[in-house]
């Protein structure tokens, strides 16, 4: 497991295009919003938590198809499937690597971009907390979507269509935590539900994703 984790992390870092691309996309997306809605700071401050969450979600989406596609093409996924490590664990490690290379950088970058959008001060902390709690779920759901579409030649667009509706609950609770945090309201309920969604996703979806991968590798 550790070997797979280290190998995938090395590949992600050295092959490039992984987190650099996602982060730049996030930056550009956030920079485009004021051009679209105008530069009034109160308006930007009000919509900032939502924008940052949707931005993080879309940047996450960008690198999903790389979770399995490269390994599928060169056949190493077949080797992993026949390895003693259960396929569920492989999926979990792949999702973890995806989270480490996109979710974590996005979480760290979000407060900086929050400054651009004039996010009120306590909001930064809660934005980071909600992203840190929510992005693992995004990566895991994304790994499931990637496993579904791995056999397809041009699965990228289909992947987005399949994964985005599944992102709805995470987005709702994550953005709610960030919004309430920015407004200084009580936020225990959405925070706990967000954590619950994340944990349930992490606990259950590896099995669904591994089942799907087995079908695709038949």
């Amino acid at each position, binding site marked *: 497991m550790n070997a797979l984790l280290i190998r995938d992390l090395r590949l992600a870092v050295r092959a490039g295009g992984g987190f650099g691309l996602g982060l730049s996309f996030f930056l550009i997306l956030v920079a485009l919003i004021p051009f679209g809605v105008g530069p009034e700071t109160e308006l930007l401050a009000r919509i900032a938590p939502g924008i940052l969450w949707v931005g993080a979600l879309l940047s996450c989406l960008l690198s999903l198809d790389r979770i399995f596609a490269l390994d599928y093409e060169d056949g190493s996924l077949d080797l992993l499937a026949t390895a003693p490590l259960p396929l569920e664990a492989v999926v979990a490690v792949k999702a973890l690597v995806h989270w480490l290379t996109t979710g974590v950088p996005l979480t760290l970058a979000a407060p900086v971009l929050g400054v651009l959008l004039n996010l009120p001060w306590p909001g930064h902390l809660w934005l980071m907390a909600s992203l840190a709690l929510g992005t693992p779920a995004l990566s895991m759901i994304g790994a499931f979507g990637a496993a579904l579409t791995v*056999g397809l030649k041009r699965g990228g667009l*289909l992947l987005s*269509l399949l994964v985005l*509706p599944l992102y*709805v609950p995470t987005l*709702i609770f994550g953005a*709610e935590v960030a919004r309430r945090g920015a407004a200084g309201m009580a936020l225990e309920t959405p925070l706990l539900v967000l954590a619950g969604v994340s944990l349930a996703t992490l606990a259950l*979806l590896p099995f669904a994703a591994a089942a799907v991968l087995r*079908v*695709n590798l038949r």
Partner: protein
Amino acid sequence: MASIWEYANPRKFIATANRLLPWVGGLACVALLVGLIWGFFLTPDDYRQGSTVKIIYLHVPSALMAINGWFMMLVASLIWLVRRHHVSALAARAAAPVGAVMTLIALITGAIWGQPMWGTWWAWDPRLTSFLILFLFYLGYIALWAAIEDDDTAADLTSILCIVGSVFAVLSRYAVDFWNQGLHQGASLSMDRADHVANVFYFPLLVCMSGFVLLFVALVLLRTQTEIRARRMRALLARERMA
């Protein structure tokens, strides 16, 4: 008594469906005609909503079938995963576009009804939003079926998507409740409190609902037959090419 699984035999299924279809289709036509004419022309206008209330005869039944269509797909997917009956997978595939259209009808009639009543075509109300999400789930499901060439792989993948999707659809349903308070009224019908809707509207509505149920069953039977025949045709063509 023969086991219900006998109908999993495609030949038997087609024969049974052929016998059932005229009846189900005919009854659906009768129920819809009676229900809609009764509802549209023979019930009084609501004292607050005027004649716009009559769109209920399309809106509620289609919403009912939108949800139950997905539920039927879930059951069919589970049967496919557990017992590997091809007819079941094809029935799920056949039901998806019908369910998607029902969802669309519910959304559109809801918008047309909402415009005079709430003064807006669309509001981000929990019920409306969850139907929009349901529609997206239908689209993804149909797209995944269409994208995969191998039939069994497609059946497996879409079945698992249907199960995971169901969980997330239910989750989204309650998440949107949390996210926004709604304009939409509560359940219009329930077993114990039929007084939600006055009796004049209630009975034609029941007829319309049974009409929609029958229509859904008829369409799914017909489309499943078509899917079975299309698959046979592909098999025949493949065999001819091999020969």
